[in-house]
């Protein structure tokens, strides 16, 4: 029987437009916080995995694996950068998990970082389109909001999902973010605010879109033996699943469901030997508000086509039957793309160890985190248990 892998420490920077932070400042602060939280020393760390989508375009900096080890004072250890667009963080977590599961290491750090505001919003939009198909999508004037708008239109057409239901995702996530001191947006929005915000790609409006964010997060993973020695509140990773789909949206079997998420979720539930109803809360990839609806359907929290309905019914609110994005989600906590997958793990650990403050989900014992790259070409699902 292979050993379990646990998380023994977490850390995040504040998320937002952090003009006084550089790329390296961000990840160094997150990593330092995680090491302090774990109660270990930097020299205990045997390897690091770092997720970042596009430091080359956002900061003109490549070779960040060695850079991050360097500024963390860890030069000498093996350091690896992984990339799957907005799922880079989830991928880093999974690589760190595999590294321990394989028996190669006992203590590994997984980090995620993106410094997005050193370029103009216009450049950031172009950089993010690298997550799609450059030759056959971007070339035609496609933006990421446009891709999710194409999915939205199809979801509305096939299932009768309404723009009001989609807007309720934004309203809920903004509310949750007001309870999260690290979140980018600390204010409530009403359905009217969302529905009257500037139109970006019809039917999606500005307040259906996650923002451009600077931020970094880190988690310390340990083998079962080490974790039990070092910590008395270990959060165990009971499943780690990754699945892919076509790079271009138009090549998918369906535009109204994220099939890579369906596959990754099924695989994760099998590994953890649980069912969707056993999950107490989930952090899902709501890069656009329609994406949360498609995520909760793919993860099995409701039937396909019912995501809008259960959102409207309040089931996904903090006090609902399946709280979704207690952190505020990508929409309101912020979306520093490469950091997001790790930030979701940080939130899940805080929830499972009763440290989530005013947004604490009652009796949280099992959490799921769901990280998507691009328009759904990559999905990463982890299940965490106390």
């Amino acid at each position: 029987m292979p050993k379990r892998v646990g998380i023994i420490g977490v850390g995040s920077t504040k998320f937002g437009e952090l003009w006084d932070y550089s790329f390296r400042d961000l990840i160094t602060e997150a990593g330092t916080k995680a090491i302090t939280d774990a109660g270990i020393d930097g020299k205990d760390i045997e390897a690091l995995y770092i997720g970042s989508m596009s430091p080359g375009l956002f900061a003109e900096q490549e070779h960040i694996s060695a850079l991050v080890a360097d500024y963390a004072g860890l030069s000498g250890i093996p350091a690896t950068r992984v990339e799957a667009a907005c799922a880079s963080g989830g991928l880093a977590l999974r690589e760190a998990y595999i590294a321990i599961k394989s028996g190669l290491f006992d203590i590994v750090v997984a980090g995620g970082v993106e410094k997005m505001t050193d370029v103009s919003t216009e450049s950031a939009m172009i950089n993010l389109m690298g997550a799609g198909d450059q030759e056959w999508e971007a070339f035609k004037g496609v933006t990421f909001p446009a891709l999710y708008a194409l999915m939205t239109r199809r979801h509305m057409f096939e299932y009768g999902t309404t723009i009001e239901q989609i807007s309720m995702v934004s309203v809920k996530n903004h509310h949750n973010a007001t309870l999260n001191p690290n979140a980018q947006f600390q204010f409530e929005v009403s359905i009217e605010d969302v529905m009257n915000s500037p139109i970006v790609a019809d039917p999606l409006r500005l307040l259906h879109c996650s923002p451009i964010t600077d931020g970094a997060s880190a988690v310390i993973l340990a083998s079962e033996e080490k974790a039990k020695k070092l910590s008395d509140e270990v959060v165990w990773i009971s499943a780690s699943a990754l699945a892919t789909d076509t790079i271009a949206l138009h090549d998918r079997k369906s535009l109204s469901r994220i099939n890579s998420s369906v596959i990754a979720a099924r695989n994760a539930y099998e590994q953890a030997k649980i069912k969707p109803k056993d999950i107490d809360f989930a952090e899902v990839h709501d890069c656009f508000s329609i994406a949360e609806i498609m995520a909760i359907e793919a993860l099995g929290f409701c039937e396909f086509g019912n995501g809008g309905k259960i959102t409207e019914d309040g089931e996904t609110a903090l006090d609902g039957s399946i709280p979704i994005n207690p952190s505020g989600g990508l929409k309101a906590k912020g979306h520093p793309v490469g950091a997001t997958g790790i930030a979701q793990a940080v939130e899940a650990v805080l929830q499972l160890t009763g440290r989530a403050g005013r947004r604490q989900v009652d009796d949280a014992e099992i959490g799921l985190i769901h990280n998507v790259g691009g328009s759904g070409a990559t999905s990463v699902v982890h299940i965490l248990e106390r």
Partner: protein
Amino acid sequence: MAKGIALHWRLIPRRYTLLGTECRSCGEKFFPPRQLCPNCRRGAKIKEFKFSGNGEIYSYTIVHSPPKGFEFMKPYVLAVIKLDEGPLLTAQIVDSKPEDIEIGRKVEMVFRKVIADGDSGIIRYAYKFRVKRE
């Protein structure tokens, strides 16, 4: 942003004439073209295939916040088009009345300018679509 000329040149037959590929082993047709059939893999026999340019709107959006280089045409309609031969692609819809843009509407390919690299750079052309006149 100026890019290498070959980047556009090599795709000219594809983008100007909807020249895709076909797997002669299983019959599936590909646009954008693929040189490896995901069904038959190395057993596939891939040949060139020219699409008719007829299809229908599968989904659409109206882009109000365009990327750099596309500002002059905003707002514009972007659609996923299902070609009559099977594959789906992403393209702009032009020369059509707003009220005619809807899922299921028949469209046909037209040849249009897409974007220019500044005032003196390369002008890129490709397929766009318009709603078919009944």
